């Protein structure tokens, strides 16, 4: 019995302690408010519009570099497998890569494919890595990411800067060209891993405030856009060619699509190796859990915007948040049926239009003050 009463006593005293503490905290608040000092910015430390914009673009270019590296690498590896099966495929495949990156109309891009020798792959790899005219080359993406980072070094963590800067210099080192010739895989892999490292470092060293939200927002918007382009281009290509393709060839192609979106393992586990086009598309667009799918990215982008909006103008609904929120519910309640035939194209275009609108709404709300 006695133990129990002790216990109740103890509980009581804890309760009292707690009550006293709360009271003293309240007193503190009161004493602060009575000093007549009004905090300068009620919503936390304000962020320079220019810094926010640079955060955004740094993150977007870093993500873009990762995608470019992956797309080129996947195509490289696939063509090695296809080599014997379909020698004529080379040029068409690289054409597809250039289309994803919107470089197929560039004269420089055309020239790459026209020459008749067999080294198309090496040429495209070089063009996508070191060429400075090519706005999507790795060197251009990383230079832009770094220039943006350099202008906001005081707002990002030292570790983020060092990760990005080290990656940049590794691509500019004297032996980089030689390394690309010897093993394209190694260079592209280093860019992909560099980008992932940068994301991890950012997550663990930068406070998850407004700046970090802008990083998230930019990364996921870029990923949605890239994923849409990959699906769109590849599906067009395969629709045209599929009838003439043998099954092993077809499977290699579908696997490449998944690899380009870094989703092959996740897909395999979900669908146990069944490579059905409709399922591939549905997975890449709608899967809830895989961080590479469109739905996942839209959701994350939406919550990033919501976070920013809450700290900037908590009373209003942010236009970008509205656009992304609507898109998110659309994806949440979508049916796989919608992706058959030309429906897929329509859905992808809608997603791209929505994200582009969201991006310009962000520009208007936060960068142009």
């Amino acid at each position, binding site marked *: 019995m006695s133990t129990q009463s002790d216990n109740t006593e103890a509980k009581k005293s804890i309760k009292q302690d707690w009550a006293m503490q709360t009271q003293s905290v309240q007193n503190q608040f009161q004493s602060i408010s009575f000093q007549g*000092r009004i*905090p*300068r*910015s009620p*919503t936390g430390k*304000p*962020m*320079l*519009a*220019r*810094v*926010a914009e640079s955060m955004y673009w740094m993150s977007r270019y870093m993500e873009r570099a990762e995608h470019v590296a992956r797309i080129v690498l996947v195509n490289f590896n696939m063509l090695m497998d296809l080599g014997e099966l379909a020698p004529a495929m080379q040029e068409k495949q690289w054409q597809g890569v250039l289309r994803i990156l919107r470089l197929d109309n560039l004269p420089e891009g055309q020239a790459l494919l026209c020459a008749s020798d067999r080294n198309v792959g090496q040429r495209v790899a070089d063009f996508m890595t070191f060429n400075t005219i090519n706005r999507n080359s790795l060197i251009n993406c990383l230079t832009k990411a770094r*220039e943006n980072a*350099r*202008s*906001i*070094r*005081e*707002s990002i963590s*030292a570790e983020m*800067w*060092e990760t990005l*800067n*080290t990656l940049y*210099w590794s691509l500019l080192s004297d032996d980089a060209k030689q390394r690309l010739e010897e093993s394209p895989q190694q260079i592209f892999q280093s860019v992909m891993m560099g980008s992932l490292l940068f994301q991890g470092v950012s997550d663990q060293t930068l406070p998850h405030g*407004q700046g970090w939200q802008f990083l998230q927002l930019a990364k996921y918007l870029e990923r949605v856009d890239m994923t849409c382009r990959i699906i769109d281009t590849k599906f067009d290509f395969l629709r045209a060619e599929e009838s003439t393709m043998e099954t092993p060839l077809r499977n290699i192609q579908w696997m490449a699509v998944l690899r380009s979106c870094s989703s092959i393992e996740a897909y395999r586990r979900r669908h146990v190796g069944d490579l059905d086009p409709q399922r591939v598309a549905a997975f890449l667009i709608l899967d809830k859990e895989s961080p590479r799918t469109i739905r996942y990215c839209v959701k994350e982008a939406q919550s990033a915007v919501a976070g*920013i909006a809450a*700290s*900037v*103008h908590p009373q209003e609904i942010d236009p970008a948040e509205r656009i992304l929120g609507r898109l998110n519910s659309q994806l949440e309640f979508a049916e796989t049926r919608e992706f058959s035939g030309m429906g897929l194209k329509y859905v992808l275009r809608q997603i791209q239009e929505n994200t582009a609108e969201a991006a310009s709404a962000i520009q208007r709300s*936060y*960068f142009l*003050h």
Partner: protein
Amino acid sequence: MFKNYVANGVFDEMFMEEGKPRPHYEPVFRQLTNLSSSAFQRRRRMADITFRNQGITFTVYKDASGVERIFPFDLVPRIVPSAEWKLIERGLEQRITALNLFCKDVYHQQHILREKVIPPEMIYSARMFRREMIHVNVPNDIYIHVCGTDLIRDKDGNYLVLEDNGRTPSGVSYVLENRAVMKRVLPNLFDTYTVRAVEDYPFNLLQCLKELARHPVDDPTIVVLTPGIYNSAYFEHSFLARQMGVELVEGKDLIVDNSRVYMRTTAGLRLVDVIYRRIDDDFLDPLCFRPDSILGIPGLMNAYRCGNIALANAVGTGVADDKAVYPYVPAMIKFYLQQEPILNNVPTYVCAVDEDRNYVLEHLDELVVKSTNESGGYGMLMGHQASADERAEFARKIIHDPRNFIAQPVIQLSQHPSLVEDHFEGRRVDLRPYILYGKNVAITPGGLTRVALQEGSLIVNSSQGGGSKDTWVLEDAH
């Protein structure tokens, strides 16, 4: 590695005579002699990679091959014993106090001009004299909050002041980064020493800036104003903002409304209280100074004169570090403080004074001529190394515009062992300590030792291929 090391007939920081180091250098000397050349090279490469990956760089103007460069770092530390440092400290404190009193006087009562201690025409003809500042009151009457004073040593080892940098002196970030890299690549060297820390500079600077906020708010909004990423000292601007935890802004981030300064944030405009500006007066406000400046903030001077914004350093401090005003600093110290200068000037001829000018023109081959409006080692004539044509051209320039030139005898700067390829050689050095002048004076122990890496060169500026060293001020041995 010290084989063939020669004294070159100047003051050597490390050696009293050949092979015999000064007592405070002995432990370092012993460790360095025990280190093989390849081991030392390895450390040097490690240091270079650290600097590059961390982006500790500066920008060289008019350089086609990549604009970003690593500031060459020389691994042998320069050591200043505590007694020597105390003297320097006292001398610098005296000097900055006088310079600040001078600025206040020149922009208010002008006693020093009325009493003809300094010829008034010397002040009114100074390009950096700002009429806009006459009778403007600045917070706490302080003009030069941050000063970098260049010291050199003559052949007897006396410290002399070569110039004061009272506008926007740079280099302090390298003091901190050099120390960090030194700890990383040669930790053993610190073993037997107690080296005074330099890390509290950003903290002291922040305190100094906080004192300037007009309203004693808990958390004044302080910003560092930079010309942008293409400025040669951009790394430092961003470094200081990062270390102090304040925003780094460019001119376009600020806007003046109703004589108040705001910054553009994602949530609209926010009031700014103090600006640590790293932009010259000329570019600060296109409505007041150079109208073609796109780096500045239109209306800033108005807000400044209303007292709504504090600037560090104040506008118009250039009048105190004009090279033709420099010779009068000892007189200022006597005039305002009734003290004898603790640190002496280098003897200087002012070309605007007839007597001096005639002497200069006759002795061009043994003097260093400097343009009063240039810095960074530009616009100089090293008389003893120049050709007859170059001397003739400078003579013409001096006669054409005497106010624009001063001349000094060639001072043989002291030398210090530096790594040259695989061994040590003597290279000339100077020392730039950084002084913070607020309610307290805080002088960072040591400062930036700059090295002229070219053999025999006397020019240490980074823009002219100079490097730098870690500088150790030793704790008092009790």
